[in-house]
């Protein structure tokens, strides 16, 4: 994924979306229904029809994405159109509402739609921004390789720490036993931080400064290993964050899309049931 999905086919779908939006705005501006603008005027029904059609079509992208056997059109076309036409919905649906909002199923559908669009927009941002950062951060390796390397460092660190004082050993072991990569959703979304490992480094460093002569070599090697480990921890955590940023929005986008589809059906039923 890279920026070319936006400039895909010389912005063909951006042009479509802008045309649709501009036409809708002009129609709204020049439309004088003789009543407050709302979804029930002829323009309101028209914009509502277009909006509902767009929403179902955009949702179909989820199906098309998995359709490997008999693909219809190129996936890049679908994605580019999905992005631009999805964004144009902000205007279509808002104009359809006539800026009338309330605590009802109609505004619920609108809010869900806006959240779906916002999460999608974040996804787009994530897919433009994070892959490059991720590549730079990985430096040709993988997250699993980093974790294996960390564990190897841990083994050596334990051996060296055994030669140090109990206090330093406790600190170092605590750092090893409590270092985690990733974690819950919130932890995964946080940028890589160093914690206990750095505290251990500081401790070993001060011991090194005032330490017994016979331990200087051990201390030096321990500091070097811990520093290496810490760098791996920060990079691994960043890697998790980039990945999480690129994944997490879908956990909002997809469930809210389904909720939106049902709310949209409810909205249409409500309007025509109590016509």
């Amino acid at each position, binding site marked *: 994924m890279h920026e070319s999905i936006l400039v895909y086919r010389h912005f063909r779908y951006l042009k479509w979306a802008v045309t649709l939006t501009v036409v809708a705005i002009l129609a709204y501006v020049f439309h*004088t229904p*003789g*009543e*407050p603008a*709302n*979804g*029930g005027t002829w323009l309101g029904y028209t914009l509502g029809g277009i909006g509902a059609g767009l929403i179902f079509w955009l949702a179909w992208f989820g199906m098309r994405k998995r359709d490997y056997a008999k693909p219809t059109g190129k996936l890049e076309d679908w994605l580019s159109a999905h992005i631009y036409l999805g964004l144009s919905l902000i205007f279509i649906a808002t104009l359809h509402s*006539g800026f*009338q909002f*309330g*605590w*009802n*199923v*109609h505004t*619920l559908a609108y809010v869900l739609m806006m959240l779906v669009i916002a999460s999608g927009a974040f996804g787009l941002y994530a897919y433009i921004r994070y892959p490059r950062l991720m590549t730079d951060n990985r430096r040709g390796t993988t*997250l699993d390789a980093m*974790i*294996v390397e*960390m*564990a*190897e460092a*841990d*083994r050596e660190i*334990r051996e060296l*720490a*055994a030669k140090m*004082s*109990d206090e330093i*050993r406790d600190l170092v*072991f605590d750092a*090893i*036993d409590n*270092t*985690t*990569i*990733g*974690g*819950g*959703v919130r932890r*995964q979304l946080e940028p890589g931080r160093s914690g206990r490992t750095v505290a251990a480094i500081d401790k070993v460093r001060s011991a090194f400064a005032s330490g017994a002569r016979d331990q200087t070599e051990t201390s030096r090697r321990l500091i070097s290993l811990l520093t290496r480990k810490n760098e791996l921890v920060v990079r*691994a955590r960043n890697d*998790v964050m980039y*990945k*999480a940023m690129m*994944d997490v929005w879908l*956990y909002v986008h*997809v*469930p809210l899309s*389904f*909720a939106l*589809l*049902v*709310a949209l059906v*409810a909205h249409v*039923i*409500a309007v*025509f*049931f*109590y*016509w």
Partner: protein
Amino acid sequence: MRVRISHLTRKAKGVAHRDEDREEDILRIGRATDSEIYLPDARVNLVHATLSRRPGGFFIEAVGASTIRHNGASRSSAPLKIGDNVMIGPYDLTIVAPAAGEAIDVTIAVELVRAQADDLVALRARSRTSIEETGLRKRSVSWALSIVVFVLFIALPIAGFFIPGLNEWSRKLPVAFDHSWDSGPASDSHKFFAGDCSACHQKAFVQVRDSACLACHAKIEEHAPHDVKVAALSEERCAHCHKEHTHNDAIIVRAQGFCANCHVDLKKFNSKSTVADIGDFFSQHAEFRPTVVKAVETKKFERVSLSDKANLIEQSNLKFPHDRHLSERGVRGPNGVRQLKCADCHEPDRGGVGLLPIEMTKHCADCHQLTFDPRAPERKLPHGDVASAVGVIQDFYAGLALRGQIEEESAPASVRRRVGQPLREEEKKEALAWAETKAKQQMEIILGTSLCKSCHIVEPPSAQNPSWRVKPVKVVNVWMPKAIFVHAKHSTVDCTHCHDAPKSTQSSDVLMPSINTCRECHGGENQASRLPSPCAMCHVFHRQDLGPMRPDFKKTAATGN
């Protein structure tokens, strides 16, 4: 003391042991290489514990903050006996009885029982590196949200509509089932029943029917006369024009275009129409055509355009010069000179819409007193009843003649006699004749010259009509009955700004202001520099002077169409 330290190593084929004997007073146990009992695991402290012999036996004692477990319990020190187990870090130390015949006090079997866990496995176990591993699920959350939305916003409202009583019951809840469907607040006038959706939305997927509206508005009036019925008006659903749930004001259509669409060229809809074409109050509205009285007796009224000066004459049969009443010098009355104001006579009605009719006795009689003879200054003629007035005059002079003592030189002696002196038959006739002549003379003055004639058109008795007649008076109270004008809303403007009364010399003047006077402030709907005034500001759609719009309502209500 002599101690044998036996290091055990479990192998596939049994247990191997490496023994070393020590003779010390105190044995240090730890990972320090100079420990007597050397436990080379990083989890053991450098000097973890000490073993010593005291008078009571062997003792083990933790050093510093180290922890040991003696027979499973955490201790800082403990006496040891044969068979005891001490856990130090990953090691188990067991006190074994020395073999018979050897010069050893005690044997301690040392075994590493908990090897260091694999850091890689542990790190992987601790780390969750993808959102998927956190337990978030797309599919189940999608299902859950969709089902919640479906139940709350589709299933419950529909069930409430079809299951009798369910929606009514749900209105006791904080939010009734179908209130989530409400697309906007009902207009203020409909709020009192708006909680019950089915009051208007009676049938699923059918637009609100007129029968729902006519249940209350049965008498709603027609817009155009029945002979020029326009299909677009009389056959359209009420809700076509009256929009609910959008905006409080939308229930009544006020947009200029709603009227102007047709009225800008009404001949298109009705070739016989005499209604002037109107498109905009400021730029496309004819001069006002007030209704004026043309003949009181025949009740002839006419709408005359204010621009038709020659015809703009009201025949009210009243003489009333506004200029003289509003003169800056004031008017002379029984209590001296008085400066009159418009409001002294023109009082607003209760609602402030129009003005109350002028009443002679209330507004004129203070000055225009109907006294007729200085000998009886309290006696007044009745107003509005000529026959009675004539009778009062006749009776008055007959009474005078009967009483006598009239100090008029021309009067006969019978009339000038002293009070109480009886009359003879001839004298009675003479006195009556005087009274009749006197009454006639007075009527000529009162009716024919001064009192009545100053305001009225009076016809003296003639051959055809032997009695006095005062022509009936009719003044138009509302010049423009098809428009609504609220005087109270214009109270900031002087009366004379619109009504040029101080300069009006004749009661035939029509003091209605021109449309241009209104246009000083009022503009068309889209005028930026004036008060935007759509048609509906002054005119109503459903006209009270026409019959009901849906006379066959009972029928439509029954068939539901």
